[in-house]
């Protein structure tokens, strides 16, 4: 699975770079930071779930803060400060926790154990921007370049989540003995993210809150564990990464042509930007788990694992969140992209960016139609890991 994440990050980094070559996202500093983040994330994955790996990933997170800051606008600076304010204590907490656990993940005494659990939950909730620690993510989404946010939520956040997944394997007691607290965090992220996404007018902020909602689903997969829960979280994370690049990319492509933020009051964009429109629709439907999108491959596993864990009540709760997600994205698709065009576009079409979006959208559908390309290899590996 780790290798699969590395492959995914590499593909997405290439896609982001190609997109940014077509629709500029920042100056030379942006490109350097992009390369640094991707290199650090990949290095952390190759190093594996150790303290050094965690430190390398933390460096990537700090570079992501710099990437937000690099835009140079007052809003970006303010968002960068918020992000930094979240990331620094998060790094401190998670590093202390990892140090307390030690390399083998052995369970310490009761009070240290509780401290570790608190540090892990608090640290990761801050890093991932889970509700109620989500104050930095919408601000970053709003102020940073679209591909900067895409890189954060698709690469940095997913690498952070995979770090948590590694912890689930090495120190399962962190989850299994404090399930209620973890469940509360996951459900709050899911419901809170979905409801807040529904309330947004600006699409990038909406995408940020829906990221939180989806991370709640993935976290739930980790919490309930087992082969299906872990595989669901892993595959869901891959789908999350892929879809979010498509979604932010489509919105970014529209912003570049209309010269302003895309909101629910921007109407009929697909008539002017058909590829971006199609990519947004495909990315959104895949993201919320509608077959044949890739998202379903992770979601059904999480649903099964959640039902095994929490029965009918939990599955109904998850499906209620999924319904909220559908309402949210259906509104965005139909208010912003479909219908009679009411916007004018300027500038030359960005064919390369459109090609990137179309390719990633197609990939999301192909992986959803025949997931065995990934799961045929990944799930047996996970099962072996679980054994």
């Amino acid at each position: 699975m780790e290798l699969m994440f590395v492959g995914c990050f590499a593909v997405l980094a290439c896609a982001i770079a190609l997109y940014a070559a077509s629709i500029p996202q920042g100056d030379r500093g942006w490109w350097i930071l992009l390369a640094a983040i991707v290199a650090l994330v990949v290095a952390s994955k190759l190093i594996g779930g150790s303290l050094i790996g965690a430190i390398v990933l933390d460096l990537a997170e700090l570079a992501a803060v710099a990437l937000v800051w690099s835009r140079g606008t007052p809003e970006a600076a303010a968002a960068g400060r918020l992000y930094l304010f979240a990331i620094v204590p998060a790094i401190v907490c998670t590093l202390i926790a990892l140090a307390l656990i030690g390399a083998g993940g052995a369970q310490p005494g009761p009070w240290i154990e509780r401290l570790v659990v608190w540090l892990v939950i608090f640290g990761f909730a801050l890093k991932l921007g889970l509700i109620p620690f989500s104050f930095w993510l919408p601000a970053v989404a709003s102020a940073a370049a679209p591909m900067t946010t895409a890189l954060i939520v698709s690469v940095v956040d997913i690498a952070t989540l995979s770090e948590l997944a590694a912890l689930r394997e090495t120190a399962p007691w962190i989850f299994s003995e404090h399930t209620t607290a973890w469940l509360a965090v996951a459900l709050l992220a899911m419901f809170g993210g979905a409801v807040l996404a529904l309330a947004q007018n600006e699409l990038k902020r909406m995408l940020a809150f829906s990221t939180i909602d989806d991370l709640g689903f993935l976290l739930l997969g980790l919490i309930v564990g087992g082969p299906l829960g872990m595989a669901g979280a892993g595959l869901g994370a891959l789908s999350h990464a892929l879809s979010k690049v498509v979604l932010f990319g489509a919105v970014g492509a529209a912003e570049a042509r209309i010269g302003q933020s895309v909101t629910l009051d921007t109407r009929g964009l697909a008539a002017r930007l058909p590829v971006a429109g199609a990519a947004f629709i495909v990315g959104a439907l895949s993201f919320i788990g509608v077959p044949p999108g890739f998202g379903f491959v992770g979601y059904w596993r999480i649903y099964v694992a959640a039902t095994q864990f929490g029965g009918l009540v939990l599955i109904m709760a998850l499906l209620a969140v999924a319904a909220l997600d559908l309402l949210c994205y259906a509104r965005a698709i139909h208010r912003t992209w479909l219908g009679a065009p009411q916007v004018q576009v300027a500038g030359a079409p960005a064919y390369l960016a459109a090609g990137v979006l179309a390719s990633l959208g197609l990939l999301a559908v192909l992986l959803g139609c025949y997931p065995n390309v990934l799961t045929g290899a990944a799930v047996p590996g996970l099962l072996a890991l679980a054994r």
Partner: protein
Amino acid sequence: MFQPVFLPTSVLFAGALLEIVLAGVLSRAAKGWLAFLASALALAAVFALMPAIIHGEVLTATLFDWDASIALVYHVDGLSVLFMLLGAGMGSAILLYSVGYMEEEEEGVTRFYVLMLVFIAGFVMLACSANLLIIYFAWELIGLCSYFLVGFWYKQQVAADGARKVLIITHIAGYGLLAAIILLYVRTGTFVWTDPAVAAAFSGVVVLMMIVAAMAKSVMYPLHTWIPEAMNAPTPVSALLHSACYVKAGAYLIARMYSIGPWHETFGNLLLVIGCVTMLVGVIFALAQTDLKRLLAFHTVSQLGYVVTGLALGTSLGVTAGLFYAASHALFKGTLFMCAGAVQRATGTRDMRKLGGLAARMPVTTLVWLVSAAAIAGVPLTNGFVAKWLLFDAALEAKQAVVVVVAWAVSVLTAFSFLKATVGVFYGIPGHELHVGEIHEVSHSMRVGMGITGALCVVFGFAPQLLMQPVIEPAVRSMGFDWQIQVTWLGIVTGSGTIGVTIGAVAGLALATAFGAGAYRLVRAPAGGRPVSVFSGGEPLPDDDTLGVVDFAEMAEAAFGPIYSLNPDPLYFRIWGEIRDGAAGARRFMTTKVERAPVLTAVVCAAVLLAAVALP
């Protein structure tokens, strides 16, 4: 190894792929012919499976692992073949019709044919799959295809809005199917419904959740409101959606539940109530319509009520009636939609208030319409009559007199509604806004497409055994029922109160004829009076000498006024409004409290979290 059961879906998917690959080189007509060819080959492949199915065999095959160890397993029995025939058969006729229809479309022709082929393939896959997860996959695949096809003209707000409603109502209700499948998997460890363990785990909760999903797909009240809004799609889409590949998916699921697990009377009674209410609500709403396609859409609601009612009776005769009705409905409703599309194509409108007198300009379309309208109204010698006859008989046999009364009343109202539509569109005086001289018959392929299905309405009305013995009987047997009907050239012998029913029907017919004749004599129509353009049934004519659709609609609204308040849409909008208000409140809280004071928020939440973790 070559597996014939996969051929229909493979051919359809291959056709869709070819459409994409050859998009740049094929003309619009050639794309249409390619799609028709793929669908016709799929139909031929289904026919090739039939000999084994007629002999009671079940064809199973495993193609490949789709997702990890979840294999694409097909289980083709009589029920599968019936629905495969509906999908591929109606699909072929409609794609043939599309060749002419889409020739004038300037953009999106490849998208249209790809989606249509995937739509049909998804439906065929749904009917064949033994794997419940693949069934859900196919269920949502056809849902997405219909979403994109209904929103085909996505630059028109009204089309986009209709597509949104399709997506939201059917997808959210579809979570019921997903939850049911997951519950079954958690209890049994398998997704394959043919596994005996699944039957043991087939509880009431599972059935209820499946019924909810089926209700939305098969437009059962109150989850039917998406279908009238889906009318702003190209007519072939409406025809396919209404006749075969969409609304029948729910009927398939209900029928398939008999094979999956034990059927309890409670489920049947619940579905009977839903079916009867749907029948009534659908036809009453249809009466008030002045848009031809919306009228047909509400009749789909009503007719699906018949299908579900038949299936819900839970007897051999009941499911026979339900399945025969499903097949018959596919034929006559598909034909009616194709006729409506022809009218719209020829006149540029489907507003019945503006139409009229088309019989002289479009004789073939008029003839095909008359046949299919007669079929839906249940006129003898059409397949609709056989279907209704079987259903009434099945309800009598099951001692469900209320069902008979409701079904009979709905039949009368259906006939009344189609009288309105037929007179309003094809007879009487042409509307003032119509350029009568410019109206002419539609293209050859369109006429052949609707002509084939229209002709089959009569063929299966004259000789229902052609459909009964090779298709319906294996389907009924595959649901675990014995076959209790004899169908011969001389009629249908159901073995249930035949003499009584026949005598009763003859007596009723004689009584009605006598009553009509008596009334006519009493009213004494004026001899040698002023000729009128339409049959008025003795009603006084309005000033402009026509009895138009508005008069019918007003009559219906006056008669059934309170029932129109049963439209559930206002309730759905109220729920949506509450959700939005709640979300806005959450947003206000986040922006005013949390985002403005991140430090305080982080500290307080961290303290709460610490307390939650630290407390034993």
